[in-house]
């Protein structure tokens, strides 16, 4: 490895020596920065400007010169609704459907994920044997690729999958009969747990999308929360024990308040990522059935790259709207980071 790298590095050194002779030592820093700044400029800042150009132009051509200026039409099209709480009354019902799906998804996913991550972190923070092992158990799915996550669960949830087999078996036991008795007694329908199509039923597909997403990302937040818990000084707890505080009180009055900054960071991070959910759900349900699990990124992707004709303007306009949300969230995140560094 080093034998390959050394000549390359020596080769780069030649122009560098020249630059150093010309610029002097402090200014050579710019030469080190150039590749990075060039990449950022070309693939982050320039696209932001171009995004607005796309958002304000129409047509189906990707080349900017061939795109007619249409003002705010794309934005108007996306945003005009008779009633903003009912996607069916919107001109672009798919966009609003995606907005609502994303909002609901993020609320549920972030809520459950933080609840489970906090529970897990609190348990791992106890005097647990093999803590490192258990920590990595919960972390393992984080490493899996979204497509693999989707397929792993699709295989379990498919119509003739192991979950349905398990429910079939459960159905023969007294448990389901008893539950069924309760539901019918309450005036509901008898419980039928056989042959449910988890992926093609809209509500179940949404449920499992949330579930899979929590499953895949929970470990990451557990890790951060655990680090936050371990940063709380032990003597605070010892003092609480001396004062005879109950465990419940210790949690309420010491652990949670001291963990609050970490919780906030985790919340914002989870929101930023949750809003951009696409990969695993798209591989899992393809956004369906219908548009039941279509989220904003999928809308952007499909308008711009998968549909015919390719509506780049609409896609760019939608991503600008998404960017507004992300910029706000990221600004909060940076502000929180800064505060925790200063404090």
């Amino acid at each position, binding site marked *: 490895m080093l034998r390959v790298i050394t000549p390359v590095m020596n080769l780069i050194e030649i122009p560098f020596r020249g630059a150093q002779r010309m610029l002097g030592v402090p200014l050579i820093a710019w030469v080190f920065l150039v590749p990075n700044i060039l990449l950022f400029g070309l693939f982050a800042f320039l696209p932001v400007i171009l995004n607005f150009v796309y958002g304000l132009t129409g047509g189906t051509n990707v080349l900017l010169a061939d795109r007619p200026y249409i003002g705010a039409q794309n934005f108007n099209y996306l945003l005009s609704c008779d009633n903003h709480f009912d996607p069916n009354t919107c001109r672009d019902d798919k966009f609003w459907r995606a907005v609502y799906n994303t909002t609901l998804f993020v609320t549920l996913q972030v809520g459950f994920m933080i609840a489970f991550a906090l529970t897990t972190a609190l348990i791992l923070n106890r005097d647990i044997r093999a803590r490192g092992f258990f920590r990595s158990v919960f972390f393992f799915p984080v490493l899996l*690729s979204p497509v693999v996550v989707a397929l792993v669960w699709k295989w379990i949830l498919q119509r003739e999958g192991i979950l349905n087999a398990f429910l079939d078996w459960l159905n023969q036991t007294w448990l389901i009969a008893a539950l069924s008795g309760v539901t019918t007694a309450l005036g509901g329908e008898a419980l039928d747990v056989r042959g449910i199509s988890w992926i093609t039923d809209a509500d179940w597909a949404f449920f499992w999308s949330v579930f899979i997403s929590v499953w895949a990302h929970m470990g990451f937040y557990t890790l951060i929360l655990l680090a936050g818990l371990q940063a709380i000084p032990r003597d605070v707890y010892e003092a609480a024990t001396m004062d005879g505080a109950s465990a419940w009180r210790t949690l309420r009055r010491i652990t949670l308040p001291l963990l609050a900054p970490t919780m906030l960071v985790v919340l914002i991070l989870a929101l930023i990522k949750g809003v951009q959910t696409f990969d695993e759900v798209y591989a899992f349900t393809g956004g369906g059935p219908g548009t039941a699990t279509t989220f904003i990124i999928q809308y952007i992707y499909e308008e711009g790259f998968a549909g015919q004709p390719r509506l780049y303007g609409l896609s760019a306009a939608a991503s600008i709207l998404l960017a507004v949300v992300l910029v706000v969230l990221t600004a909060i995140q940076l502000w929180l980071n800064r505060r925790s560094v200063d404090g």
Partner: protein
Amino acid sequence: MASLWSMLTATRGRNGRLHWTDWASYAYLTFGILLMFGPVVWLVVSSFKTPNELDRFPPRFLPYVQETVEVEGFSDPLQVYTVTEGDLAGEHVAQTRRAGTRAEVVRPDAPDDRIRLRTDQLQAVERVGFTTSNYTELFERFTFFRYLFNSTFITVMATLIMLLVNSMAAFALSKYEFRGRTPVLLLIIATLMIPQTVVLVPLYLLVTQMGLYNSLWGVIIPGAATPTGVFLLRQYMVTIPDEILDAARMDKASEWKIFWRIILPLSAPAIAVLAILAIMWRWNDFLWPLIVLSENEKFTLQIALFSFQGEFQTNWPNLLAMTVLTLLPIACVFMFLQKYIATGIASTGGK
């Protein structure tokens, strides 16, 4: 309720004896193992089953294969059955032909004596066995190695470029006092607000204009500079004492030599963490390759896997095998490096 909380908060077992809250904690963690590993284990075990076995409902946990026997006069091994009723009840027979509900069988020791039976009189003789045919078929019928090469090429190249470019920037921002340093830092922070997902259309334009559409480099280059990488490395390089640099300058080392002979080796731990993260991101990358790569020839494993499941909705045998092969490298990384990944991710806060 209060006792539930005490379970969640108690930090110490009492007097060396396990309190019931400890039991509850271990129960939770055991359930965690099942829930986190179980689905993947099930996938891996399933991938070693024969297609027939995969169609079976309800499924059995372990893979089974039917016992076969070599019989004189037949070129292929024959499947072995137990006869359940009739004259031959309880005996093992080898099936030579099957048509509808009728089967022709022979006794392995008397291959010339053809016996006709109804298929419902026969029960397959099975044993636990791992079939690799799903995998071998994958290699023969599909260009699996092409995808593997594409994924590996993208991951390796993107990681190397990213490490070089980001460490150069981190070096400049940590070891030089120059006008414009703060604006550059702010600029890099600003890129945190621009994830790839919100600039897909312009990125697509740029990549097509550079002639990189449907090329592996089109996947590699746009993601080469990351704010996370720059910050992670800078944080580490700031702690390297300036005296070392000054000493090297006294010895007339060029700044580039200082960078790659002194700073890079000294930052090895941070670079290792970033390398692991980069490998993970690139190997698992999905949306951008999905947009840039249009031909089957150029697909990465992830994209191939994705398009595979669309095309062959029911071809689970090969799909399972391919999924296992795709998660294999990550599983290896996990086993050997999980400690470093955990600390790395905790210190960067993810992507």
